């Protein structure tokens, strides 16, 4: 049984990465790298859906910061989907890092942020 799974969906402006399972020091870097590798250059950014994550530790939080930095270097944004009552929110709260970037409560809200932004190149 693998600890976590990443399901990638490409939509016109962005990539949605739906993560499920547990993310800790054993797999956090792989999860992050999987999402970054899958992100096309023309996407405005990534919606990292953490609503299905059962456990996230400090190594996972660190990887989220790392993902944001590498996306920013490519001019792309990272929007996190974290419901206010969720294991991921608990971890971020305990770590004193409630908002490690732009946060939406649902995937739809996150996509709306991209849709309202002008498409790249204009």
């Amino acid at each position, binding site marked *: 049984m693998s600890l976590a799974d990443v399901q990638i969906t490409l939509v016109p402006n962005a990539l949605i990465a739906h993560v499920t399972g547990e993310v800790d020091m054993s797999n956090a870097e792989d999860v992050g790298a999987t999402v970054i590798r899958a992100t096309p250059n023309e996407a405005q950014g990534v919606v990292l859906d953490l609503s299905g994550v059962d456990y996230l530790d400090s*190594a996972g939080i660190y990887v989220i*910061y790392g993902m944001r930095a590498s996306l920013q270097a490519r001019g792309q944004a990272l929007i996190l989907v974290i419901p206010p009552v969720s294991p991921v929110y608990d971890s971020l709260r305990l770590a004193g890092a409630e908002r490690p970037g732009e946060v939406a409560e649902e995937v739809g809200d996150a996509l709306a942020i991209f849709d309202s932004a002008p498409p790249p190149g204009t």
Partner: protein
Amino acid sequence: MADTRAETQRPRNLGSGQVVLLPAEPIAEPTEDRPSSYRFTDPGLSELPIDALLEELLNRIQEALEVDTVAILLHDTESKQLVARAAKGLEEEVERGVRIPLGRGFAGRIAAERVPIFIADVDHADVLNPILREKRIASLLGVPLIVEGELIGVLHVGSLQAREFGQADLAVLQMAAARAGPAIEHARLSAALQHEHDVSMLLQRSLLPKRLADMVGVKVATRYLPAREEVGGDWYDVFELPRGQVGVVIGDVVGHGISAAALMGRLRTALHSYAIEGHGPGRTLELVDRFVQSLSESAMATAAYAVFDTYTSALHYATAGHLPPVVISGGEARVLEVTPAPPLGAFPYGRCPEHELSLESGEILLLYTDGLVERRGVPLSTGIEALAKAVRDATTPEDACASAIADLVPVVGLNDDVAIVSLQSAIVPNELHLTLPAEPRTLSHVRRVLRRWLNERGADDGDIAEMTIAVSEACANAIEHAYAPSPATFELHGWANNGNITVTVRDDGHWRPPRGHNRGRGLSIIVAAMDDVQIDRTADGTEVVMRRHITGK
């Protein structure tokens, strides 16, 4: 066999030195000069395995006809050739794997025309097999081997001295052929059946789990006993599911042999796949039913599937035409209630109602197939009661399997195969004392043990979530400290006292100051999640002591 032809055929010369003989009258009685003729009908011969039987027949033919060589070639229907199978005085024929095309040469014509053929002078006859010439055989007599109208081969004898083979000789050879034919055919069929049995068994075995993964929170034991003769379609599986759940399934495919074994492999894969999608036992069985319905061949199977939650001890189960599971607890064994549901593949849109119970620490779930409890002339309920009685004192899953087999499986073996899976809700100790490998993959193992232990200590979901992350972070620190080249370990201890939980994580590495955001954040989590945290760093290692008061459920 050939005696109906006697009236219609006359001896005729085939040319090429071959003469077709009239089939001989069957020998009614042993004659003075050939007392050994009867020995071909010796009933003791049929007791022999095929190779010994052929060897014995060849010996007796050689003796009865006073010939130098005897050979049996068998008809290979695929290649339409005769293949040397056994020989006396012509062993090279078998060793070299001589093959004669049907219709050609001496043996080929006997086979194609299904007639006895006599060759007085091999040197001047159409003989294909070079070994017959090399051996300097002078005269030959051969007869076809025919069983139930099918040509199965040729039996021939040879003499180094030129000689006549007459009707009396032919009668003896025909009698031997009549004996050898069915014996060879029987041996061929049973070899083919044995082959299918072996293949089915191999397939069946290969489709059962080789070894079960070591799983946190449960102990598991399994048994598979094949039936005496046929290979059945009994199967089982045990697998991990997300969030500390364990799936355990047993099933029985209707039918036997390779097709049953192949279907069970497909069912096992289908069920595991649906289970991993997160469906409960009832829905999973319903989906497997739809899978079976969609197969082109008609198929039917029964199954019982249960999901055990190692965090909460909840057990959900459902059955499809399968016998009810048994739960063993404190010297008692009870048969679980099941809502009857049709077997998989039986009716369109079959429903599998789900049941729930709590499988408390130490209790054992037993799943089994009908071969264990079904006996001719005995009601099924009697067999299930006997099973419950047999296993009620079991304290481990191994015990349960062993007791069930000892009491219910007859010494002479089984008519039907048997599978048993036994799963115990692991006994959770009051105190945790663990020595763990300092590897990142240990963390998920620690969390599973801890969640279950904290649940048993009465912690609520919030307590469990926050303490689990704190302890996991402390363990991650210990793993980072372990940079010794040799396999390193760390220790975890946990105990409860007056509503206070204390967990210590101790390693023998040197404390490293938090690096960057990452480890600093780990320490923040530990401090935020626990009421009291002490970190003792010494030359011998680092110990993190964490305490938290639990509000309880």
